[in-house]
């Protein structure tokens, strides 16, 4: 009932209701346009569009933020960023996150969703696992928890001496992990942080994929089975192509998230981690802007983040299209 009316037909473009403005401009219509269109757009322009536009401009100046002096210095800020080892480390960390987090999260979420929906017996109609609602509800829990709190919970879990993780590891005889600083060692800080982000998101995307898989007609699975396709074959050759758009959406959202990752990193390692191994661009941006007062340079960092995000989305779209997805624009 809820789901039925929600999927818009892809071709509403032509049937767009044409409003002919033949009726007079009454008070009703004028106030309607003012409140319904002008008001939201005004708020959007002042607090979103205008700051974005300004940010591009500031990135080309040496503005400190506290004095009115502002000199146009062209691309000098960007050159500075290229030579700034700490910022390049942060950029590299974000790129690592953008490569690892979406891939692992999507693979894990897809595997779990497949198990839940079609992992049951292969006799009779294709069916899911018994008790799957239980797994689904539990897995979604982390999504209802604010990211900062997820970070704080795992900060305590990873605590070298009082954390549950080392408690369990030493408890089962791995004494080498006694007081091991997971977040304080440059080798493990990043993997541990990546794990926390994935922990927070797998459940949500699992639920999303479950919903997508359920919308696939059951006959397709029955047909695949009659043709002798095994479970893995079915998952890769039937399910995956059919929920391709959902995977693409998930991948882009996760990529945007990984190119930020600010909240998690602030919670787990506020200072950027050992040897800056978990430092991300947003952390560097905030320090540059509000502690060092280099607003021009900070804006340039923001532009780099925006460009990285756009590039990531473009790569995902391109890859999806190359492996046979529908051209974008068919579906909005």
């Amino acid at each position, binding site marked *: *009932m*809820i*789901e039925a*009316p929600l*999927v*818009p037909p892809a071709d*509403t473009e032509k049937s*767009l209701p044409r*409003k002919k403005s033949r009726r007079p401009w009454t008070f009703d219509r004028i*106030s309607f346009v003012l409140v*319904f*269109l002008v*008001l*939201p757009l005004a*708020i959007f322009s002042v*607090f*979103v*569009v205008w*700051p974005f536009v300004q*940010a591009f401009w500031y990135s080309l100046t040496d503005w400190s*933020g506290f004095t009115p002096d502002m000199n146009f210095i062209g691309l000098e800020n960007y050159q500075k960023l290229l030579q700034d080892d700490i910022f390049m480390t942060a950029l590299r960390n974000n790129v690592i996150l953008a490569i690892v987090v979406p891939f692992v999260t999507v693979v894990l979420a897809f*595997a779990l969703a497949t198990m*839940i929906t079609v*992992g*049951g*017996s*292969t*006799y009779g109609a294709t069916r899911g*696992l018994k*008790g*799957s*609602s239980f797994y689904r509800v*539990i897995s*979604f*829990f*982390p999504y209802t*928890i*604010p990211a*900062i*709190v997820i970070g*704080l919970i*795992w900060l*305590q879990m990873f605590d070298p001496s009082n954390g*549950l993780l*080392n*408690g369990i590891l030493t408890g089962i005889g791995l004494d080498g992990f006694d007081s091991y600083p997971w977040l304080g060692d440059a080798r493990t800080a990043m993997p541990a942080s990546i794990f926390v982000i994935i*922990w927070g998101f*797998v459940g949500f995307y699992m*639920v*999303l994929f479950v919903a*997508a898989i359920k919308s696939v007609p059951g006959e397709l699975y029955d047909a695949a089975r009659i043709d002798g396709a095994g479970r893995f074959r079915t998952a890769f050759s039937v399910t995956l192509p059919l929920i391709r758009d959902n995977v693409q*959406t998930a991948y882009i959202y996760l990529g945007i998230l990984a190119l930020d990752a*600010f*909240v998690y990193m*602030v*919670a787990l390692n506020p200072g950027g981690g050992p040897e800056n191994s978990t430092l991300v661009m947003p952390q560097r941006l*905030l320090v540059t802007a509000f502690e060092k007062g280099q607003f021009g340079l900070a804006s340039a960092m*923001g532009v780099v*983040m925006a460009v990285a*995000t756009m590039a990531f989305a473009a790569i995902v779209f391109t890859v999806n299209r190359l492996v046979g997805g529908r051209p974008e624009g068919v579906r909005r």
Partner: protein
Amino acid sequence: MTASASTDSDTSQHAVTSDPPPSPPPPGQKRGGAGDRAVTSVSHVVLGLWALLVIIPLLWTLLSSFKTSSEIFSSPFSLPATWSFDNYVSAWTSEGIGRYFLNTVVVVGTALVLVMLLGSMCAYVLARFSFPGNRLIYYLMLVGLTFPIFLAIVPLFFVLKGFGILNTLPGLIITYVAFALPFTVFFLYPFFRVLPQDVAEAAEIDGAGEWRKFFQVMLPMAKPGIASVAIFNFLGLWNQFLLPVALNTNRDNYVLSQGMAAFASRAGYNTDYGRLFAAVVITIVPVLIVYVIFQRQLQGSVSQGASK
């Protein structure tokens, strides 16, 4: 409406997931049966492990929230000597979590109502009226949706300062509304677009003006879409961290997420971890309870969000 929806999905749930155990396999398929059982068991093991991985940190947090700091330092497994709510009381009052909680309710509640109202109005106009600049506005919204907030944060600081609403709750509210607006418009747009035109025309013939047509005819018809977008907006705003950290630095005005971060960095020196755990539980529990009650509807909305 809601009740029937939930029973609907109830029954479909049963159809797909909790069928009675399959009858014994027909003779010719015994080998497949064994393989089946193996796959089913493996699935249960893997899903069970994941569920444990999710639930254990949460239970451990709950357990630790009843312990004193010295108990926390002695062993991660030990049970608290006394089950008292002292940690909760002191987290709520002396650590200011109560105040942050209240601020969050005010900010998120107001912003949510405003953004849903403005967003649905804007999506309605964009979806059902053609005028020059219509597509331009739509694509502008799309760009606003994909650009990182970090890019805007520095100029935004000065915009709010210019209006004199930096470090105030109204300033935070209007920023929340502005940044949630693109998402709201973008995802409500298809809902308004597919609403039947003849109902709108009937309302017009009956003499309804544009205002009445929207609030009494179109808005109620788009309710399912509005409900699911509202859920995501709620979680997004509840979760928001960067905007308050940069734009709302007055401690009295802290929202929960930034209050938690500040508390945690202080707890590093004061080492009152019991209170920290209690504060974490206070933050998690209300939303978790609401989720468990409405989880069917929420999962419905996840699937809708997914189909866009």
